[in-house]
Each structure stands twice: as structure tokens, then as C-alpha cells.
């Protein structure tokens, strides 16, 4: 057993780490933007190679069926977002919102963020995972505040403080897991290694595990953005650069959710521990309904979609909380679809904010008339995120709702209510944004606009395909993982 398996895993960690250092040193944003894209592409390819050759688990690194889905999704969205970010950031530079120095910092941080997320995903050690997630939080804090406007700083500060508390709680949970494991596993490194923990969890002290899960659920749940721990999320999405919003919504939330899922697995395998499902389902339901209501009064378009992310994280948490093969499958599918869709929406929203020069919903009108491509992209995005066919989220919501109703009819009613409330809110805003007479304000579109639509189109195409046809290998994979999740 080597300490670090070679090949794919090393690459998906080394490439971002190295390029973070390199990009931090390089001046000139064009080159660094391209390098950024290239590095992300290479990382994505490396992640794909994991399908072919799966390294054996080591004390720090683990690639199993659960996290490989996350890793590939993570690197893919990281890559497409970097393509989007290249044109987005160029425009920000033109309008003078960012300086070249900021950009150098931005690109380095972008890679650092990818690195820490990948690390969190591949970590076979709960301590290492905690460290990686803390790192990811810190890098995103820095990026959220990059515009240095009053609101941006405030958002970053809020994120930082709430995140720190969340991290502290998660650490306490981690320590408790170790404490619970020690009598069964013994002292030292083994007490924090997933594979070992999973193998022997049945002998752990259930009471300690319960307390640990409460802390982990709340600690990592803060990162997932579950209500009532969500407060940082809307502001951080709204005030940071849009590529970061896309990454936050599409990836970081997933990574935190991944951590929660891991610990859920642990608890599920211990016969004496409480079932973690009801807690997750409750938090998910509360998040869904709360976010649904919050969507109505939003004035900022990015903040609105941030609340939509909370809503969907709620659905996913609910699905995993319900458990069972159908709901778990739906949860995985929903998570994947939400990542793709939400990041695509943020791509569209980023350009919309650039061409209209505002993020205020009240100032954006009639996009399908003034900017047909962006307007219809937004329509497609909202239609997809609202759970309408033929997009993938429809399938996952179909499975979640129908399987819940067959098992727990009383839970399905608030679920459906929440879905409807959120749907109503999204379309309430969409209709004003996309239809009607266009607002007068409009600035010229960014120069390199054409290229930047590609990531969005790619995401929508994937989501559309998933809504109609899921490739059998993917299905088998999801089903296997759903079975693992219990």
C-alpha cells in the first residue's frame, strides 16, 4: 500500500496545485485565462482516466464508486466554468471592475479551489477531508470579496464568519468520530481512514456517533446551505464574480453534501446509531419550503438563483434522507443535474448582467426580445431547474415525489407544496426577465461572446439528454451507488 497512488489521482491533485502556483506568478490575463482552461481540461481528462484505472485505496486517498461520480462532475464543471470565466473575466477587465493584479490572484485561487475540492473528494481520511473543505472555504471567501465593493466585502465576511463556525462544528464532529472509532480501531491514523472506519463501524459506540453526526450535519450542512445554516449562501453567490457563483452552486455545495453522505453511510452501517435519514429529510424539506418562499421577494437575479440552489440542495438532502434505491438514485441524478443546470444558468446570468449592466431584476426586462440567445437560454435554464421536461431534473423530481408519496404520503404533501411554491416564484421572475417590452438599458455585449456560449450549450445538451435518455453504464453506476447509500 503506497502512501499516494500514482496516475489519475495524483494528476487531478497535482495539476491544479501546480497551476495555482504558476498562475499566481504569471502576469497577463489572456495567457493565464488560457492556461486556466488548459489546466482544467487536463484535470478533467485525468479524472476521466479514473474510470479506466481505479487506484487501490491508500491511507489518504480513496477512489470508490461514490466519489468518482463527484470527481468527474467536479472536474467537468470546473472545466466548462473556466471556459466561461475566460470571456467573463475579460469583460470585467474591460469595464474596469477588476485589475490585472486581481486576475492573477483570481486564477490562482480558482485552481486552488479546484485542488481543495478534488482533495476533499478523494480523501480517504476524515481529517484530510476536513482540512480540504476548510481550504476550499477560505479560497472562496477570498474570491467572493474580490470586487471589494461594500456588499462584496460584507458578503465575504459573513461567509467567513459563518463558515468558520461551521468548520469548527465539523471538526468537533470529526474528533468525536475518531473517539468513537478508537476502541474498535485502535489509536493513530487508522482511526480516521474511511475504509477502515467503514469496515468496523458496527463496533463503534453508537451514542458517540450520534453526537458526532449532529455536529457533522450542522458543520458540513452550513456548507451545503441547508436552512437554517444557509445565511452566507445567497450573499456569497450574489456578490462574487459569476464564475465563482457557478462553482459555488455547482460544485462546492456538492462537495459538502458528499461529506455529509459519507458520514450518513457510516451511521447507517452502525446498528445502534439513530437513522440519519429523518434529520436530513427534515432539513431538506425546511430548506425547500423556506427557499421557495424567499424566492418571491428577491431583487437581485444572482441572489435569486442562489436561493434556488438552497431549494435544490433541500430536495437532494430530502431524497437522500428518504433513502431507498429510488430516492437515492433520484438524489444522485438530481445532484448531477442541478450542478449542470445551475452552473449553466449562472453562465447565462453572468452574461445577462454584463449586457444589461445590472443584476437588479427590476431593471432587466424582455430579454428574449432584446438578447434572444441569452433570453432563451435563461428560459431554458429556468424551465430545466423548475423541473419541467424534457430536462433531467424532471426525472429526478418525478422519482423523488412519486416514491415518497408511495411510502410516506404525509411527507410528499409539503414536498409538493414546496416545489410548487418555488416553481411559482421562479416563473414569476422569469416572465418579467424574459418577456415583455425590453428595458432600455443595454451595453454592448462582450467582445468574445460567441465562445462563451459553448459551456452553457454543452450543459443544457447534457441535461436535455439526461432527461430523455440515461446511458445504461451511468444508470448501473448510479444504481450501484444508490444501493451503497442504503
Amino acid at each position, binding site marked *: 500500500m503506497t502512501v499516494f497512488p500514482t496516475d489519475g489521482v495524483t494528476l487531478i491533485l497535482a495539476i491544479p496545485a501546480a497551476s495555482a502556483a504558476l498562475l499566481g506568478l504569471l502576469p497577463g490575463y489572456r495567457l493565464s485565462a488560457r492556461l486556466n482552461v488548459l489546466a482544467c481540461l487536463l484535470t478533467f481528462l485525468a479524472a476521466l482516466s479514473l474510470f479506466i484505472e481505479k487506484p487501490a485505496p491508500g491511507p489518504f486517498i480513496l477512489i470508490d464508486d461514490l466519489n468518482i461520480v463527484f470527481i468527474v462532475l467536479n472536474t467537468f464543471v470546473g472545466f466548462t466554468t473556466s471556459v466561461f470565466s475566460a470571456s467573463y473575466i475579460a469583460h470585467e477587465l474591460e469595464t474596469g471592475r477588476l485589475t490585472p493584479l486581481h486576475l492573477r490572484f483570481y486564477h490562482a485561487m480558482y485552481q486552488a479551489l479546484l485542488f481543495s475540492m478534488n482533495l476533499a473528494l478523494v480523501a480517504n481520511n476524515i481529517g484530510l477531508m476536513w482540512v480540504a473543505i476548510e481550504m476550499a472555504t477560505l479560497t472562496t471567501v477570498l474570491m467572493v470579496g474580490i470586487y471589494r465593493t461594500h456588499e462584496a466585502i460584507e458578503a465575504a465576511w459573513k461567509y467567513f464568519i*459563518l463558515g468558520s463556525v461551521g468548520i469548527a462544528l465539523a471538526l468537533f464532529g470529526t474528533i468525536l468520530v475518531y473517539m468513537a472509532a478508537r476502541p474498535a480501531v485502535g489509536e493513530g491514523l487508522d482511526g480516521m481512514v474511511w475504509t477502515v472506519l467503514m469496515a468496523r463501524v458496527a463496533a463503534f459506540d453508537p451514542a458517540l456517533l*450520534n453526537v458526532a453526526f449532529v455536529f457533522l450535519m450542522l458543520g458540513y450542512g452550513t456548507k451545503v446551505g441547508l436552512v437554517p445554516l444557509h445565511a452566507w449562501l445567497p450573499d456569497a453567490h450574489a456578490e462574487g464574480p459569476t464564475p465563482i457563483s457557478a462553482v459555488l452552486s455547482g460544485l462546492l455545495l456538492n462537495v459538502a453534501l458528499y461529506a455529509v453522505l459519507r458520514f450518513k453511510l457510516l451511521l447507517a452501517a452502525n446498528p445502534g446509531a439513530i437513522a440519519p435519514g429523518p434529520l436530513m429529510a427534515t432539513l431538506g424539506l425546511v430548506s425547500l419550503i423556506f427557499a421557495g418562499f424567499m424566492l418571491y421577494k428577491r431583487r437581485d437575479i444572482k441572489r435569486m438563483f442562489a436561493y434556488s440552489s438552497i431549494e435544490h440542495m433541500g430536495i437532494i438532502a430530502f431524497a437522500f434522507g428518504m433513502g431507498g434505491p429510488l430516492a437515492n438514485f433520484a438524489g444522485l441524478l438530481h445532484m448531477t443535474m442541478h450542478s449542470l443546470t445551475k452552473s449553466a444558468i449562472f453562465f447565462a446570468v453572468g452574461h445577462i448582467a454584463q449586457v444589461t449592466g445590472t443584476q437588479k431584476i427590476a431593471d432587466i426586462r424582455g430579454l428574449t426580445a432584446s438578447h434572444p440567445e441569452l433570453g432563451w437560454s435563461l428560459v431554458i435554464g429556468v424551465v430545466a431547474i423548475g423541473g419541467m421536461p424534457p430536462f433531467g431534473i424532471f426525472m429526478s423530481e418525478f422519482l423523488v415525489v412519486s416514491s*415518497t408519496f*408511495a411510502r410516506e404520503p404525509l411527507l410528499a404533501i409539503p414536498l409538493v407544496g414546496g416545489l410548487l411554491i418555488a416553481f411559482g416564484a421562479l416563473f*414569476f421572475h422569469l416572465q418579467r426577465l424574459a418577456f415583455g417590452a425590453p428595458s432600455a438599458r443595454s451595453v454592448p455585449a462582450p467582445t468574445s461572446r460567441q465562445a462563451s456560449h459553448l459551456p452553457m450549450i454543452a450543459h443544457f445538451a447534457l441535461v436535455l439528454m439526461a432527461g*430523455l435518455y440515461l446511458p445504461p453504464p451511468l444508470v448501473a453506476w448510479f444504481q450501484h451507488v444508490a444501493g451503497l447509500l442504503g
Partner: protein
Amino acid sequence: MAPMIPASPAFALSCVGALLAIAVLAIPGGRLRDAAPVVYGACLATSLVALGGALICLLAGPPASNVVLPLGLPWVGAHFRIDALAAFFLAVVNLGAVAASLYGIGYGRHESEPQRVLPFFPAFLAGMNLVVLADDAFSFLLAWEFMSLASWALVMAHHREGDNARAGYVYIVMASFGTLALLLAFGLLAGPEGGYAFAAIRAHGASAPSAALVLGLVLLGAGSKAGLAPLHVWLPLAHPAAPSHVSALMSGVMTKVAVYGFIRIVFDLLGPQAWWWGLPVLAAGGGSAVLGVLYALMQNDLKRVLAYSTIENIGLIFVGLGLTIAFEANGFHAAAALALTAALFHVFNHALFKSILFFGAGAVLTATGERQMDRLGGLIHKMPLTSFLVLIACAAISALPPLNGFASEWLVFQAILLSPQLPQWGLKLLIPAVGALLALSAALAAACFVRVFGIVFLGRPRSQQARDAHEVDRWSISAMAMLAALCVIAGVLPGFMIDSIASVVDALTGARMPAQASLQWLSIVPVAESRSSYNGLLVFAFIAASASLAAYAIHRLASQAVRRAPAWDCGFPDPSPSTQYSAESFSQPIQRVFGSYVFKASERIDMPAPGDMRPARIKVELRDLAWELIYAPIAQAVSFTAERLNRLQFLTIRVYLSLVFFALVTLLLALAVWP
């Protein structure tokens, strides 16, 4: 995969595929100059082919094969099947599609932003076809929601006009509500293991309480799409907002797809019915029939009148379905067959005449740019063909013999007359009341369409636009003429229609009405000749003969001199067209009679004192009780909650931290008290 004979699901699916391909091609092509005729022409051809296939299925018996595509839910696959029921509804859908496409070839030229219509029109057609074809819950709901989505896009096509955005919003939310209700219903039907294929659901069956729950959910889901009161609020907003040929499809066909959904789930998937299921269906149907037409009478917007009238007709159809449930649950299969035949016949009929009426409204809109009835008038002189065809549709929808509307309504009444044999008291009391409601709604419908035709086409023009009107193009006329001819044929020879529906009815109720085609003189006999019979052909012949005989005799034997003179008007002629009765004044007596109950109508009259030169004014306020009692409170509650919760967006970090803190303490407390 089944061979590609025209009567197989694979054939129908390839038609759907062709429609989708047209939709995709229309996205880039929609901006081209002559795109509209090409797109509508392609839709017309495809729908014709699909219609042919559906008719073969219906008349020659449905194919046994079904198609499973590796799409949709991976472990279920996308199942498609055509049985008799599906074949009938496919025929209705594609007949409407043929007419709308034909109409669109002409009407589409006047579209200001064709790129907002052309891609969605074929997609909408494809969605409706798919709903009917689907044989598993996922495909069904996917197609259902896709249909809603495409029609929403069409409703939003004229997004800059007044209230259309609101219409689209209410529509999409209600559509989503309906889909979620159906989703829950399917969740119950499929069970926790997720047997989503219809075959599995049939085999699985549902327990009594959950079956009742499913019925309720289906009434909500399919009922909201069909426009049953009080779930109808979106319909009169959304249907008029779309371009007219789309309105025709939405009103004439999409509501029927909803009826199909109801029949499919309740009669096919749900297993044996309980007698009391008939009660809510009958009540909803009867209520919708009367409310719909009363609202229609109060409207001034031509297309909105038609949309409300759709609610009435849907009510009639649901009464038929409710009767079917009541009979079927009690084992009166023949009576059930009669009621179901009546309902399905009306499905077909309403698709015909409502399409003509919306086409006519579209023609009027093209010719004058006006939808407000009070700005129209006298169009019969400028648009003779249109007005003649619309007159036929008006007569048909008013259930006048010998047209088709009467034939189906007559069958419903015959079914009602069979109901005293039902043993349950609830039904005994409800059904006559529903019969009275239906009779009331039929009479009100006649009033409504006298009003429509009289105000819009007769009298003197009330505006310059109406004065400058002109006849519309040949395509539009031919679409209306085709449907009008069908109205007459179906009314004169109802026996053929009943016979072709018989296989559908047989499959669902296990009985059929007596075969009608072999009867003497082509009359129709629901149960037995001594009970009742009706012969559309003879009535038609009698009327035609006696009218022409009288006309001939008088013109031959008496005078045929004609002189034109100013209207006499009892000695008070007034040249101003505004002295004519307006749409509102026409309906005022009826509003006085029914309005205070149904609309909480209030009239405020401002009558100046003698000598005062101010004009007298009357202001009538009507309130939509469904909106006020159900929707407005919900909207207010949501808004109120959102407003209250929104304060949580503007708290200090400390308060957010305390949220975390309380969550932690609560969970720890829960752990501490956990047994």
C-alpha cells in the same frame, strides 16, 4: 419493433418524431420570410398521415403490438401503445391538428414574431400525440408537461400585449400544479417499488382508500388541465392569449387530452370503481357547465367568451364520465356504455365546433384587429363565408338539431334518464339536479352564442376597423369549412360516430350501445326504440324540405318584391351604431337573474338630475368567486409568508449565528431525550 404499418405505435411515434424535427428546424428557420406556410404545411402533412393511422386503428381495431424505447426511466423504458381509447383520442388530436395547421398556413402570415410561434406549434402537437401514446407513467407525465410547456411558450408568443404575461404565469403554475397532482397519483399507483409501466399498474391494482385518493388527485390534475371549475381560472386567461389557431388547439384539443388522462387513469388503470366516485365528478361537471357558460355570457372579449364556453363543454363531458362511473360501479354496463359514448361523442364534437369558433375569432382578429365584441358588428356583410361557417358552429355548440352538438347532448340526457335505476340515494338526488344544470347550461349556451354571433357578425359596425373588415384567406376558410362539414355530417349521421366509438366504449365498460348503422333510416337508438330515438337525417331533411317548400311556395305564389329602406325601429331610428344593443346590454338581463348569486354582481347607476347634461353611467362589477375564495387567499398567504420570511434576509451575523446555535442545541436536546 413492430412493422411500419400505418396502424402501429411505431408509425404514430415516427409522426411525432417528424413533428419534433419540424419544431427543431423551425428554430433557425423561423425568421425566414416564408417559413410559416412551410412549417404549417409540414405539420398539416404529418398530422394528416397520423390522422389516417389513428382512424385505421380506430376502425380496424387497435394493433396488439406495443413499442418500448430505451428512453425515459432507464429500468422502465418508454412504453407506447395504441388501444381503442388512444386511437380515438389520437384521431381527435390529429383532426384538430390538421385543421389548425391548415388554418395556420393562412393565418400564420399575419404573425408579427413568427419565430415565437413556429418552433412551438409542432412541438405542442407532438406533445399532445405523445400523451395519448404513452403507456407508462413517466412518459405520460413527460409528454403531459411538455405539452403544457409548449403551449405556455405559445401563450407567451404575444408577450408584449397587456395581460398575456399574467395569463402565461397563471397557466404555467396551474399546469405545474396539475402535473404534481398527477405525479402523486402515479406515485400511489406505481407503489414504492416503482412499477411505472401502465401494464404493471394494471396488474398491481390499488387498494380502496388509495384508489379514492388517486381519484381525487386525478380530478385535480386532469381537471385543472381540462378546466373544471374551480380549477379553471387559468383557462380563460391563457386560451385567448395564444394565437388563434393555437387557442383552437388548446381549447378544442388539449382539454380533450386532459379528458383522455382522466379516462385512462380512472377507467383503465384504477381498476373497479366505487359508486360514490361519480358524485364529485358529476358535481364538478354540472357546476363547471353552468359556471362556465355564465362567465362566458358576461365577457366582452370574443376569445375569452369562447374559452369560458370550453369550461361549459368540459363540464358536460365530465357529467357523462361521472354517469359512466355511477352506472359501471353498479353493474349497469349498457347504461355506462351509453353515458361514455355520449361523453366521447361530445369530446369529438366540441373539438370540431370550438376549433371553428376560435378560427372565426382569429379571422375576425385578422380582419379587424379587434377582439372586443363591443367594437365589432356587421361583419356578415364583409366576411360572408366566415360568418356562415361560424354560424354553423354557433348553432352546433348551442345544441340545435340537426347539428352534432345536439346529438351528443341528447345522448347525455338519455343517459341521465336511465339513472333512476341506480340504487344509491346520493346519486338519485344528484343526477336530476345535474340534469337541470345541464339543461340550464344548454339554454345559457344558446343565449351566449346568439350574443356572440349577433354582436360580432350582425347589426351595424361599431368601429372603423369593423367597417374596413375584409374576408380572410382561402386556407383559413377551408379549415373552417372542413370542420363545419364534419359538424353537419356528425349531426346528421350520429349513428356512424356512435359505432366507431363502440370499440372504445366496449374496452372500457365491457358493453356497447346497440349497433346503429344497420338501423332503419340511419336513426340512433340508445337503448330501445320504444324508449327513445332520434334521427338527425330525417330532421335535417324535414327542415330543409319544409323551409324550401315554404320559400318556393311563397315566392312563386305570393310576392317576391323587396325594397330596401332605413330601419324602422319602432319609429325611433337613430343613425349612430352606438344605439345598438351592446354585448354588455345583451347579457344584462341574465346577469340580473343569475349574477347576484354567482358573481356577487353589483350595479352602480349614476343618473344625472334632469337638466344635467352629463351622460348617465352604469357600472357593473362582477367578481370571480373562484378567484376570490380560493386563489386570492392562497396568493395572499404566499405573499404574506414570503414577506415575513424575507426579513430573515436582512439579519445580522449574530442572529444568523444564533440560528445555527439553536439548531445545534435543539438537535443535542433531541439526542438527550432520545430513548
